[in-house]
């Protein structure tokens, strides 16, 4: 039905006039005769409803917030919108503001006027950012930083500021056009660094350094522009900064991609703990590299996406390989600037400038002394992270125990108590673990676990951090015995505790990842695959950000995430994740856990193929999985049992009944031993064996 319009109401037709209808809609005060008319006249009642609808709609619109900018088109440039200045033309239009070439009327001098772009409806943030830029630049006096003349409000009430007009060329095109030796490049670059160092000393990080923000003026002096994204360092005494965006929390659309090429990995990775002045140092590194080599350090990137990946993983080529005439010291400096680890870069632009000075004076540079101890420590830590990730249930227990003991050893938490609890827990659990406990899975494991859980709750109730760790472990052990109900309480409680602890800074990303992972497994076992997917996803992000994209825990989480997708029938996504997990598994160090993980991924890929009815190649994948597994596990490991079961299924499907029966029998034997007669997988194997056996009779 067409919505009636007010114009539809003609005068003199006996209907209620618009003004009156509006009043009725506003106050609901129709007189008896109006009410009577409204009940009879479709047109009037529809109009009244339409007005009421409009009013409700407009109330919602108004709720969006007051508009500061008129809905009527804004003034044109030549109306003199900025008092005291004549705007001559637009120099640059960015996401945040427009820069005009202007003339200061009182002095007749040329200058640049920057105005906030479209204050209007959502300008609170932009306005604050704009004001911050004014504040920051106003306090800086350095030949390498543009000078601010004046700031104020334009006629439309929006802020503006006038600054020195720098006539010059972008840093990169200046270098391209001038034929400079590497040494001359370094000399020019040093001036940029000096200006940035000045800002750093004043507690300001630029955050958006790039060639476009450095102009080389007609005297050949570089000038750093656009502190619109800069942010004061806070709490700089402890080296932590307030803020960690790619290019400032208030970066706007147009600048988003442009800044990518100069963004440090910790910005891309979203690692807030690592953000400080070294992001400027990194950006300077990209600029130096580009200036020396004529190409960006990751120039081979085919796309923004590749660039991200490379930044995190690849090493740029040495500048001397690209551009002759660059010496080893300069190589070292350039690559040190681009180190993915902030700790290994120069800490501030000041340090970098001093290093450049040493280089220019022919003195030994400090970067060459990159300490062996540092490298050694890093390496050990990296391996520790990988090795402490538990593969099986037992390893989870041991891993968690060790990790917790170590973690708490450095705090003032009662270390003795923690270690004692953990070691007794570990001892108890070892006895019931299906991998070592030889047949003990039939001895009321779930009841025993429930007792242990209760005991732990009592003993550690006043120590949520420790308790949550043990609860996760217990929950996972419950799950290991297919006891989702028993696991639920432990894992959910652990999750709640860790979640709070994380918000309080009392738990690391990795620890939170661990509990998210456990929660995901729980949800999966309970059949809530959407919730499982969500939790796996959270775990994945957290792992990737804490232990890294190629760590075993990350790969494992990816694999499980794929299972959650598969369980929801989203095969395409599942395949993508498995593929990603498989690719990543190639870079895992050779170990038992890595082999188990790889086998599991192959199993997952096979299961997908199976769902599509491609039995022959699926069989191949299962056999590959078994081959990957065999050298690292005992012949009657439950994973061997499960894989054998799958192989038997496939062999059955392609008509190889004899081999199928043999494998099903072996699978059943192993699963019975390892998982007990009540486990789902054991029952499945038993059913298959029964079916095959009856077929052969």
């Amino acid at each position: 039905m067409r919505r009636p319009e007010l114009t539809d109401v003609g005068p003199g037709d006996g209907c209620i006039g618009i003004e009156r209808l509006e009043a009725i809609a506003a106050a609901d005060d129709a007189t008896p005769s109006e009410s009577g008319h409204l009940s009879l006249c479709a047109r009037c009642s529809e109009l009244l409803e339409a007005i009421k609808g409009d009013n409700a709609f407009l109330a919602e619109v108004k709720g969006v917030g007051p508009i500061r900018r008129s809905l009527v088109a804004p003034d044109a440039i030549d109306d003199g919108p900025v008092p005291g200045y004549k705007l001559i033309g637009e120099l640059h239009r960015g996401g945040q503001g427009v820069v005009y070439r202007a003339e200061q009327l009182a002095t007749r001098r040329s200058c640049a006027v920057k105005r906030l772009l479209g204050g209007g409806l959502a300008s609170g943030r932009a306005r604050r950012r704009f004001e911050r830029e004014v504040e920051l630049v106003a306090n800086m006096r350095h030949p390498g930083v543009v000078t601010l003349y004046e700031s104020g409000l334009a006629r439309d009430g929006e802020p503006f500021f006038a600054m020195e007009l720098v006539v010059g060329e972008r840093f990169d095109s200046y270098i391209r056009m001038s034929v400079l030796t590497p040494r001359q490049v370094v000399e020019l670059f040093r001036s940029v660094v000096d200006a940035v160092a000045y800002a750093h000393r004043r507690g300001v990080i630029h955050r958006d350094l790039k060639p476009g923000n450095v102009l080389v003026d007609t005297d050949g002096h570089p000038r750093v522009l656009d502190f619109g994204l800069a942010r004061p360092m806070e709490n700089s005494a402890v080296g932590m900064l307030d803020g960690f965006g790619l290019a400032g929390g208030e970066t706007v659309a147009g600048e988003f991609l442009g800044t990518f090429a100069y963004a440090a990995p910790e910005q891309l990775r979203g690692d807030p703990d690592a953000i400080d002045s070294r992001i400027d140092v990194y950006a300077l590194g990209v600029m130096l590299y580009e200036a020396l080599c004529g190409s960006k350090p990751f120039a081979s990137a085919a796309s923004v996406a590749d660039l991200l990946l490379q930044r995190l993983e690849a090493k740029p080529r040495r500048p001397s390989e690209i551009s002759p005439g660059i010496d080893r010291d300069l190589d070292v400096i350039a690559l040190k600037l681009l180190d993915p680890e902030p700790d290994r870069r120069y800490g501030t632009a000041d340090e970098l400038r001093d290093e450049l000075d040493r280089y220019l004076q022919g003195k030994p540079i400090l970067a060459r002394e990159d300490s062996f101890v540092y490298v050694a420590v890093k390496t050990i830590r990296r391996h520790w992270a990988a090795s402490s990730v538990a593969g099986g249930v037992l390893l989870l227990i041991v891993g968690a125990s060790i990790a917790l003991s170590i973690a708490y050893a450095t705090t003032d938490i009662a270390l003795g108590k923690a270690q004692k609890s953990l070691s007794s827990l570990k001892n108890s659990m070892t006895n019931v673990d299906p991998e070592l406990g030889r047949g003990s899975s039939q001895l009321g494991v779930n009841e025993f676990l429930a007792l242990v859980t209760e005991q732990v709750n009592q003993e550690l109730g006043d120590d949520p951090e420790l308790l949550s760790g043990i609860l996760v472990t217990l929950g996972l052990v419950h799950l290991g015995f297919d006891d989702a109900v028993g696991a639920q309480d432990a894992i959910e409680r652990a999750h709640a505790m860790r979640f709070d602890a994380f918000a309080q800074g009392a738990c690391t990303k990795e620890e939170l990842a661990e509990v998210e992972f456990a929660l995901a497994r729980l949800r999966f076992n309970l059949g809530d695959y959407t919730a499982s997917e969500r939790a796996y996803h959270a775990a994945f992000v957290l792992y990737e950000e804490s232990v890294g994209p190629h760590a075993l825990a990350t790969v494992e989480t990816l694999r499980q995430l794929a299972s959650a997708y598969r369980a929801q029938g989203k095969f395409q996504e599942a395949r993508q994740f498995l593929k990603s997990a498989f690719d990543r598994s190639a870079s895992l160090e050779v170990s038992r856990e890595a082999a188990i993980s790889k086998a599991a991924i192959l199993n997952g890929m096979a299961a997908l193929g199976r769902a599509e009815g491609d039995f022959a190649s699926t069989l191949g994948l299962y056999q590959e999985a078994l081959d990957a597994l065999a050298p690292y596990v005992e012949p009657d490991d439950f994973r061997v049992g499960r894989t054998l079961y799958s192989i038997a299924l496939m062999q059955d499907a392609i008509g190889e009944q004899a081999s199928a029966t043999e494998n099903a029998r072996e699978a059943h034997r192993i699963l019975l031993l390892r998982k007990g007669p009540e486990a789902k997988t054991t029952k499945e194997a038993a059913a298959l064996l029964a079916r095959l056996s009856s077929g052969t009779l």
Partner: protein
Amino acid sequence: MKETQDASRTTSAMLVALADPQNAVAWEAFDARYRPILIGFARNLGYNDHDAAEAAQETILRFLIEWRDGRYDKSRGRLGAWLVGIMRFRLLDQRRQRATANIGRGESAMVDMNDDASLSQVWERERRESVLRESLEELRRTSRSDPKTVKAFEMLVYHTLAPKVVADELGMSLHDVYLAKSRVAARLREIVARLELAYSEEPA
């Protein structure tokens, strides 16, 4: 006009365009659409402007990485949940940092970050506001009505002036003031309906 195209582009079309990582326009459009919602979302949860903006930025970046990895599930209605999921951790991370640095903050207004239902409510509110804001922008940009009509609407709705005052001020009849209100509301509704469609994540 580029802006208009971007604004009316459906989210799903936008996502398709994102598959080409070099499509900077698509990324900008995506960023322009979702960053304000994320910021509003965080502010609604009690975060200050700065923290909200930071977390929004991190979230967009994270999404970019995930999109590249093919980790985003395109089935209907999931984008918001996915972004909320990312945002939640970014915000938690900030709180964690603050707590570590012993910076006291009043957090009584915080929504329970562990409660999916209230998070998606906040998200939905923000998304709707964003649609309305964008609609108003478009109305301003593309208004074909005569300025008096729009002005009357503005005074009536935004400045909450009495219709009589608006009529006197603009030299219009009361009838015309109401007519202006009705017309602009209809136009705005139209824009809102179109943008709602564009924001929805149904297949293009």
